[in-house]
């Protein structure tokens, strides 16, 4: 094998550098300009990588579990004492929890029934996370072959997770609700009974959500539940978003700013469900509003 001399390498390297930098810059500007979702090449690359990711995640999980068991043994003695104390407290709580559990099971059965009737869900496993520390998206092991499509909502029993922003044949990329680019229509309190309607979007800090546009006249308390309204035409109405943890009150003229902790544990997601939700068609009056299809009428 003949290798180039250092002189040749020195002559060629700047040319290669310029060509490759131009290629990368071209790709960046192309994607930055294109707002129509994820490039096809990304979707296909994710599909190609997904079997390897699945394998490495599986092997890594087994390895980490093995080493974690040794670490756990060292902490077992201290934990044992702590747990004995907590057991006594827990027994009291258990009595109350049983009542709540029975109620919860009834409501869950009801919710499952409603879900089954209105739209189907596709279970999926999280096989990868965004490799960059600057963004936070998920890669799941279901794609177009399983019926996944763009903008489908992704949920867990605890709450909504995000929406599908890229889809390949056997994998899909999910943008989390905590991403600043993501948003959902939501209401504080019960849907249909509360007027505290606004939109939640990623706050960009501590995995929280920020709810905006809620009238300053509405009463919102810390601990209130936030659910989807369905007005964004992505998430079905009535799904849990999270809990209010802080409220910055508004006035008659200014809306409140509400900080919400997502119900779904987004940092430790293992399994999710993708909902095959088709939003209801717009009614005829909505379609004929004066500001709709303005371009066509000109």
């Amino acid at each position, binding site marked *: 094998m003949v290798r180039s001399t*250092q002189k040749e390498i020195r002559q060629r390297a700047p040319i290669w*550098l310029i060509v*490759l930098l131009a290629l990368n810059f071209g790709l960046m500007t192309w994607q930055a300009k294109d707002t129509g979702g994820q490039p096809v090449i990304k979707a296909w690359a994710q599909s190609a990588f997904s079997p390897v990711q699945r394998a490495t995640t599986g092997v890594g999980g087994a390895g980490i579990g093995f080493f974690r068991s040794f670490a756990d043994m060292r902490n077992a003695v201290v934990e044992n004492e702590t747990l004995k104390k907590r057991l006594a407290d827990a027994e009291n709580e258990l009595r109350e929890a049983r009542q709540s559990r029975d109620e919860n099971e009834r409501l869950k059965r009801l919710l499952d029934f409603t879900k089954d009737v209105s739209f189907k869900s596709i279970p999926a496993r999280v096989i990868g996370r965004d490799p*960059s520390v600057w963004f936070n998206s998920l890669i799941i092991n279901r794609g177009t072959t399983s019926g996944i499509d763009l903008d489908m909502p992704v949920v867990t029993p605890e709450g909504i997770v995000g929406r599908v922003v890229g889809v390949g044949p056997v994998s899909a990329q999910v943008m989390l609700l905590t991403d600043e680019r993501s948003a959902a229509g939501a209401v504080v309190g019960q849907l249909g009974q509360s007027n505290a309607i606004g939109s939640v979007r990623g706050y960009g800090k501590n995995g929280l959500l920020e709810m905006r546009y809620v009238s300053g006249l509405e009463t919102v308390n810390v601990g209130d539940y936030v659910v989807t309204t369905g007005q964004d035409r992505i998430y079905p109405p009535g799904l849990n978003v999270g809990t209010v943890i802080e409220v910055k009150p508004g006035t008659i003229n200014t809306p409140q700013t509400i900080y919400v902790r997502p119900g779904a544990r987004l940092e430790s997601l293992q399994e999710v469900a993708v909902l095959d939700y088709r939003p209801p068609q717009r009614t005829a009056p909505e379609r004929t509003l004066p500001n709709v299809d303005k371009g066509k009428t000109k």
Partner: protein
Amino acid sequence: MKWKLAVCVGLAVVLQSSLRALWPPLAYADLPLVVVVYFALQRDAVMAVMIGTVAGIGSDLLSGGLLGAGGFSMTLTAYLLAALVTRVMIDNALIRIPVIAGASAFETVVYFFMHQLLGQPPVDPMAGTIAETFAFKIIWTTVVGTTVAFLLDMLFNESPGLRRRRHFAFRRRIARRGLTRRKY
């Protein structure tokens, strides 16, 4: 050699995505960058920029960021390192530590700047703030990178002595310009 190189780059990209799913802080260790730095220190600038582009675009394909931003920053980092290593001896086990830290800092700044430039700033820094994420990334990449570089040394049969001999041979060749092609 070439298949080993391709496997290293591919594995680094896939692991970068998979390890975060197992334990989120592992995402701070930029494995593709470590591989790029390792090969940039081999004094072949053309190979370095190519590996930089492949590893960077590979990461971008699995990321929510701009396609090409990682490629751009890693290519530039690889070239600067490859240019530097021909002038100063930085391919040494101890000096590698600040080299990896510096490369990580530079690559992160360029990556961040490219997103800002094209109007798509990173929106979800993992540590909460940009400064903290930046700091954690450099620390993790340096610690993990130093270990990974030793593993790569073993994989590619590199030893400190061999590297030193190659460096001095290289300096002699540079001193006597116009050498004929080397045959392996």
